[in-house]
């Protein structure tokens, strides 16, 4: 088995259809995808883009989101397993990670396996079939860095931070929709994700304690991933965002207020950029 495993080789059965970030943004069935979330049609029916049961498209959106969560959990499982595998135990320098970090990654693999189990059950409960929506593999890409600290920043802090926001939203959706089953499961997954983000925060600080340059590279990478996974501002503090930043849970997971503010700014930037892109696209299609 190779030391590092490329995203193109991720093993899937024939039901799965994989896609990249650009294609995903054009898929109108997923939150933040396509131009629908910012179109007049969508905003005329709802005062915000938040996923609430009274939306006309609530069922499809929730199903698409749950499928997205499930494939995200599969990749999180794969990423944690790879990090447990790819680096030898050592002092954290070079190609090594501390033994205790390897153990944490193995623990995370188990947690993510449960999350796949939970989200597969919830998807079935919601009437979704595996492979009904496309799988965006960019999550695993963030887990492919040759620097384990970048993986902690990109996966544990940025992506699992996003998971905290998404699960908080889904828990709320379950509550509003009167679905205690959904709310119960999201509550449990949220507890695990806070643990994983905290793992990322703690290890990132510890491993880069005497290497400020490596730390700042990791934090820069985290910002890139944070912005990418803002899904064009679908996640953010604004009313137009589908997902709010779950500030309290992020705090529990080791984020400082400043760090959450920075993510909110990145989300706003991403939203503005997406709006501009949609305007340009609409102008181009009107001209044709």
């Amino acid at each position, binding site marked *: *088995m190779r030391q590092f495993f490329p995203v193109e080789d991720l093993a899937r059965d024939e039901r799965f259809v994989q896609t990249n970030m650009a294609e995903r943004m054009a898929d109108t069935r997923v939150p933040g995808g396509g131009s629908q979330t910012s179109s007049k049609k969508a905003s005329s029916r709802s005062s915000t883009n938040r996923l609430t049961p009274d939306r006309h498209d609530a069922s499809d959106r929730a199903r698409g989101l749950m499928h997205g969560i499930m494939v995200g959990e599969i990749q999180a499982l794969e990423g944690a*397993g790879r990090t447990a*595998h790819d680096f030898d135990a050592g002092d954290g320098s070079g190609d090594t990670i501390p033994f205790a970090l390897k*153990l944490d990654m193995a623990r995370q693999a188990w947690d993510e396996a449960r999350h796949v189990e939970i989200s597969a059950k919830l998807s079935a409960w919601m009437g979704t079939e595996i492979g009904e929506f496309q799988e965006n593999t960019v999550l695993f890409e963030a887990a492919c860095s040759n620097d384990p600290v970048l993986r902690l920043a990109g996966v544990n802090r940025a992506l699992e931070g996003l998971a905290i926001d998404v699960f908080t939203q889904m828990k709320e959706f379950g509550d509003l929709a009167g679905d205690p089953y959904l709310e119960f499961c999201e509550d449990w997954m949220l507890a695990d994700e806070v643990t994983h983000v905290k793992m990322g925060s703690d290890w990132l600080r510890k491993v880069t304690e005497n290497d400020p340059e490596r730390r700042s590279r990791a934090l820069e990478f985290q910002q890139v991933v944070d912005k990418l996974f803002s899904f064009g501002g679908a996640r953010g503090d604004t009313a137009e965002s589908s997902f709010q930043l779950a500030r309290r849970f992020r705090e529990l997971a080791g984020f400082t207020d400043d760090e959450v503010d920075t993510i909110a700014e990145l989300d706003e930037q991403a939203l503005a950029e997406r709006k501009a892109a949609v305007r340009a696209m609409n102008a181009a299609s009107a001209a044709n």
Partner: protein
Amino acid sequence: MGDAPAPERTTARAPFAPWDRRDLPGMFDVAETARRVGNYKWAEMKLFEALGGWIATVPELDVKMRLGTHCYHHAWHAELWHKRLPELREMKPERLTQPANEAMVRFMDAMTEPEAPELTIEKLVGAYRVLIPRFIAAYTYHRNNTSEITDAPTIRSLTFILQDEIDDWRDGEMMLQSLISTEHDVERAAAHQARLEAIMVEAGGIAGPGTIGPTTVMNGGSPTTDSTTEGDA
């Protein structure tokens, strides 16, 4: 009846209750226990790394999830052994975190070689039909032969770990039985198992020759292992 004097009560009791049959003698001194525990930790680490690495390489969704779950089990075993080593006078656990011998290294290399998505059977055979049964054997021998009194902490870990190993072995074996559906599959599984088993036999088990104790009787009844007679041949 009511007039009989109450018998005098005493709190003096034997140190061992009548039902407690634990005894002092054990086969392993502190150094030998530490050596074995170091070999166990090394092998558990190699196993959890392999299971973790394979998750992304297997297309079967149920297998993918079981590998993730089992990856943690073996990481936890490695952690228990890591923590036991300083209690056995090894203050640098890394020093004893070693393979039993060179053949064990070759075994792990051969076991972790399959990567392609169509090789799930080979991956599972290596872990669940060769390595984990060897863990069960090594741990059972250790638990049954160490001092029940002086080495109680190792026994406690062995008991927890053995439960995991047996449960995981059953999971893995059932996954294999569900995947092996043609004669060709049977041949693949058997061929891979034979190849790995041969290297494991060379290694003598997870803790090297004598992993599960002397197995033959020679020289007027004193037991010895094949490997210990090797040098005399």
